[in-house]
């Protein structure tokens, strides 16, 4: 279990307990947090679950697989701290993670 905080673009903060094994994307979708579309359902094929990860968490996350960076090319305003939230799988180590949802997904 990990507590994940989603900051949405309208400056609202949602902190949610998410079970291990789910992705940060699924945590958002199941809890109706706006701004994560996840059109492809977690297949790393659409870049509509794009989030900005708070800087202090960047090094603690699993490294990007081939393909995630390629998909981020397609994301709306990608930055250095961009990740696809479908690729961030919850574990105890991610307790306290903070992600920021972009203004748009496309």
């Amino acid at each position, binding site marked *: 279990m990990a507590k994940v905080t989603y900051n949405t673009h309208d400056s609202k903060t949602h902190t949610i307990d998410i079970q291990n094994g789910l992705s940060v994307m699924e945590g958002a979708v199941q809890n109706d947090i706006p701004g994560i579309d996840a059109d492809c359902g977690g297949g790393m*094929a659409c870049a509509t679950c794009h989030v900005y990860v708070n800087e202090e968490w960047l090094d603690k996350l699993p490294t990007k697989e081939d393909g995630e960076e390629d998909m981020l090319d397609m994301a709306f305003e990608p930055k250095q701290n961009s990740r696809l939230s479908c690729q961030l799988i919850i574990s105890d180590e991610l307790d306290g993670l903070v992600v920021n949802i972009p203004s748009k997904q496309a």
Partner: protein
Amino acid sequence: MNKTDVLIIGAGPTGLFCAHQLGIIGLSCEIVDNLDKAGGQCIELYPDKPIYDIPAIPECTGEELTNNLLKQIKPFNAKFHLNERVEELKKVENRWHVKTSGKQEFDVASIVIAGGVGSFEPRKFPLKECEKFEGKSLFYSIKDKSIFKDKIISIFGGGDSALDWAIELSNTSKVNLIHRRDGFSGAESSVQKVKELNDQGKLNLYTKYQIGSLTGNEKIDSVSIKHDDGEVKEFKTDYVLGFFGLIMQLGPILDWGLNINKKTVEVNTENFETNIDGIFAIGDICSYPGKLKLILSGFHEGALAARGCFKYAKPDEKLRFEFTTTSKAAQERLGIKK
């Protein structure tokens, strides 16, 4: 006006198999898709990637699956209308009239929406000012490359479309290729070619830059780009091209009065009919308790929706359940000669 029993919206695997199920029970159909080819997400998102969970097919690619489905529905001669997006829906007595973006008109007894996550549209630049230039000096696809001759073109993106067009247009235009990182998702041979052209001064490659702003009145005069470290460059350009792949949008279907929940259409699980009589939804676009977004679920949903269409197409007939193994009628429809 195209008159047929059923209009299928979406030529992905679910829509294609539904055409098969309609054909087997003797109903005619036509298929509309916004892409230029059949296959939907299978072809657009992962043509070369393997799929391992199609029943009785241990492994196949999206492209192979599509080709096999097309082969399977060939006997029914379903007419395809590609590069067309459905727009308007109107009830006329007990039939539906549908109009598409290309002004095709359909008169059908029922409609099966197999639209995936929506129709594929190009992804656009994040800048607001891009809209006023779009279609004039800013494009997301190229229809007539001759307009670029002897002009300055700024291309954004790092996939095959961006690389291929940068290489091609560098023969006749002055090309700037701008990409957000050093790595590219396009073919390695194209990446090498672009780097060579850059070394030879035949195009200008800017990596770790993204679009900053556009200036111009009627047409674009210049573009500014911003480096990861904050540095800004500005240069003159006649055209801006963006190649960021495609995104799926539900589009006009949203306005049809269907019960929509989180970008999906609510259906019953008896025949996958929506809240509107005669309109069915199957595949990724439909939702019901327990829904799985798998191709195999889409096949099941298509089989039941096809049978649900029967009473609208042939209100005076009763549909008998038959197996293709033994049904003479089904085998005749499949064109099997004995």
